[in-house]
Structure formats: C-alpha cells, structure tokens
C-alpha cells in the first residue's frame, strides 16, 4: 500500500491516527461528486424516458420547433460546450496555483451559464406566449407542455445551481478558502450539466422539429 494513496483518517485506539486508503486513488470528495453525477444521470434518464413514453403513446404529438428555435438551440449548445471548455481552463489554472486566472475562467463559465439560462427563459416565454401550458397547448397532445417544461426546467435548475456553486468556488478559491480540488470537483458537475444538454437537444428539440 503506497503512502501516496493514504490520507489521515480517524483516531484509532489509544489515540493513534489510522491511515485510510483513498478509494480509487481519488479524494473521497471527488468520488462523492462522481456518485452524485451517476445518480443524477439516472434521474435525467428517467425523466427523458417518461417524456418518450408520453410522446410514443400520443397519436397527436405536436411538432413545434421551427428554424428559429433550432438556431437558438444551436447557440445555447455552443455557449454551454464553450463554458465546459472555460471551466476546464479554470481547473488547469487552479492546478498551476494561478488563482487569478482560475477565478477569471470560473467567472466566465458562470457568465456562460447565465447567458444560457436567459436564452432558455426567452424561449420559454415565447412558447408560453403561444399558449403552451403544462397540460394544454393549441396544437395537439396536452402533455407536450408538461414534458417540455419538466425536462428543460430540471436542466435549467441544474444550470442555475451550477452557476451559484461555481461563483462561490471561484471567489473562495481566489481568497484561499478553497483548494484546487474544489474547483475540479465542481467542474465535473458543470461538465455533467453540459452532458445532459447533449441528450436534451436531439430528444426534445430535433425530434419535435416542424417538418
């Protein structure tokens, strides 16, 4: 057992310190984030399958999204994937102990998340203005709205949560309160949010394009 894999653990009998091996040779906090990610992936999987079930069992599922919506979706995808890149640059900067650069890249990532949320809310308002509600719409199956708002709303909530977390971590890392591993852990969360969007776009938007 290499000492590099050991961290100080709990106090054992007679006050001796017990060394614990780190699980999978990563900090336990990072492992916790990975476990959260896979549980959240199953949550999103369940919500997307529920949407698919409702869509498949409805004879009059509306095809709603025109080219303007698709262009907006592409722009949102570009912003979110680019923010994944910027958070990766923040992690690299934090691993080089460059606190100013890590803070700057983290804030750019958070700004990307805010911009994504604003574009998404604008699209929501457009659909609401056209008469889409959770249980009715002017075009077809009443549950289209419920499916759309629940999937995209759950994702948007994750984006907003990620923006808050990244802001806290960025400010905290610059002030010395947090370490580089905290930046890396929350970068993992941000990449996961981007990953979910990669499935939301084809399943929600492209499959429901007007033809």
């Amino acid at each position: 057992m290499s000492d590099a894999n050991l961290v100080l653990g709990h106090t054992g009998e007679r006050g001796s310190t017990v060394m614990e091996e780190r699980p999978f040779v990563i900090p336990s906090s990072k492992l916790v984030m990975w476990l959260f990610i896979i549980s959240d992936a199953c949550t999103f999987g369940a919500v997307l399958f529920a949407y698919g079930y409702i869509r498949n069992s409805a004879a009059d599922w509306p095809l709603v999204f025109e080219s303007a919506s698709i262009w907006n979706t592409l722009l949102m995808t570009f912003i979110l994937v680019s923010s994944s890149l910027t958070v990766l640059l923040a992690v690299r900067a934090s691993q080089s102990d460059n606190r100013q650069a890590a803070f700057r890249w983290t804030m750019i990532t958070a700004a990307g998340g805010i911009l994504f949320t604003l574009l998404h809310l604008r699209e929501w308002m457009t659909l609401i203005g056209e008469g889409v509600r959770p249980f009715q719409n002017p075009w077809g199956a009443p549950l289209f709205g419920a499916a759309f708002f629940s999937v995209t709303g759950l994702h948007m909530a994750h984006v907003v949560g990620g923006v808050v977390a990244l802001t806290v971590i960025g400010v905290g890392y610059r002030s010395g309160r947090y370490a580089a591993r905290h930046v890396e852990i929350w970068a993992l969360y941000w990449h996961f949010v981007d990953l979910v969007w990669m499935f939301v776009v084809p399943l929600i938007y492209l499959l429901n394009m007007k033809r």
Partner: protein
Amino acid sequence: MSSGNSNRTGTTYIVYGAILAIAVVQVVVALTMGPSLGRMLILAAIQAYLAVMFFMHLRDEKSTLRLALIPGTLFVLVMMNMIWADSFRLIHLRPFAK
C-alpha cells in the same frame, strides 16, 4: 512536462471542436435524413463519450473507477427501456391522450 501540457491542451481543443461539430451534424442529419431516434441517440452518445473521457478526465482515472461508474449506470438506463411496450399498448387502445 511542457510538451505534455501542450499535447493535453491540443487534445482539449480538438475534443471541443468535435463536440460542436457533432451538434451541427445532428441538426443537418435531422433536416436531411429525418430525425430518427436511433441516429440522434448514437450521435449524442459519441458526444457524451468525448465529454466524459476527455473533459471529465475519466480516461485518466483508474480503470476500477470506470468499471465502478459506467456499467451500472448504463445498466439502469437500459433497464428503463422495459416501459416502452406499455406506450405501444396505450396508443392502440386510446388514440388521444385525454
């Protein structure tokens, strides 16, 4: 060390470009060949693989971590597929979801 870092940076930008390119390909495929579920899922899965392995650096972690995380998650996601049969039953019994 510096050449290793520049290699990693280069790989990062290549993966970034690839993910964006696949997003564009998804739209083009949907417009030209029709948005079939299978085609969309395959392209999304490729994007997900790139993001997980390169952006989330799971490729650089121990193989035991990959084994602990990936197969179980995929198994749960695949097992959710058992609900599809019921949606086909519904569409034949009741055409409008009211």
